[in-house]
């Protein structure tokens, strides 16, 4: 399968997701990209099946007294695309720090 060619910002977002950052605000903070870039890019990545999204379980969010978030995770194709993007843009690996658990 051919890995899709990603723009620099889409590659950065995919890299952030593959490092464990999993929702819009967090990705904005860690990549420094504006909201107008991050959210449409997440939609495009989801449409291209490089990313899948799911809602946080309601009881989990309720226990923490906050609304449920929409979480994104990288699919198998997305992982291959992230790897190809890291080879194409080697600096990507240094731009996004590993997520501290």
């Amino acid at each position, binding site marked *: 399968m051919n890995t899709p060619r990603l723009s620099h910002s889409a590659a950065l977002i995919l890299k952030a997701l593959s490092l464990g950052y999993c929702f819009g605000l967090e990705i904005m903070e860690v990549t420094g990209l504006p909201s107008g870039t991050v959210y449409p890019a997440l*939609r495009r990545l989801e449409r291209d099946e490089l990313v899948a999204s799911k809602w946080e379980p309601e009881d989990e969010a309720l226990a923490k007294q906050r609304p449920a978030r929409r979480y994104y995770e990288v699919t198998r194709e997305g992982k291959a695309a992230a790897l190809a993007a890291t080879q194409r843009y080697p600096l990507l690996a240094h731009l996004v720090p590993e997520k501290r658990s």
Partner: protein
Amino acid sequence: MSLPSPNTAPPLQLPAFDRTVLRVIETVVPRPERAEWIRNWQAELWHMHHRRRNQGNIPTIAATTDLSIGLTRDALWLRTDSWRRTYSGSAILCQASLFGISLLSVLMALLLKISWHALAAEYYRSLVAAPLVLFVTFATAPRRHIEPEAAGRMLVRMRRRLFFAGKTEHILFFSFLLSADAFEPLHASLPNVADVMQVFAFVLFALIGMRWAFRDQDERCKHCLHTLATPARVGRPSHNLLEWNGSELTCKHGHGRLSVPEMETSWCQSSHWIDVDTGWDEAAFL
């Protein structure tokens, strides 16, 4: 992906500015995706305010405005994607694109300040050439066209012909204008050469356009006129003389499929449209 039930969610206390922005922008989002979009953005805004409060920053309108750009672009993306899914490959988009090219060629003619007198003379010459172009394209159209009796009630056939007539009319119109636009600069110095070249250019543009129109017409669903998709190869090329071999294209709305033979044989000369029997769908509901 299921949407969490709003009844069980904790109350969202968003500032009035946020609520207003959400209410205004939600109208852009296609209706089927609206509930999820609102829920998503309510959560994102809530988390943004909550995080800023925890970090000791007072949530400001500037911060919300920054996120508002994101929610606006997100809503616009959903709207354009919905249009893309609806109109991509449709007859409306095809006619609109041809209309756009026609409009562009009119604008070019206006910008080049072509005199109406010169345009009328070129128009009469092109009027002579147009039936010839049509005759040549109809006479030399690929033989593997759809069988004439294939697919359709009277109304469907009429729609198909009207669509083709619309395409033909647009193609002839913009071919004429584009050829006039192209040789207008030459007209001042070499008027006779420009006139001859204009007719040649018109014939060339119209022939290319009409070839495309025939091909496009063949590769559309005979019912909804959407472009057929998902081409699949069927049969083995090495068995060409023994069994059917070619490719199949299907209508994404499930109206039928078009079988295009790889090569013309005495028993399979033309493309064959196969209607999907709606009786199977009805049987499934029983």
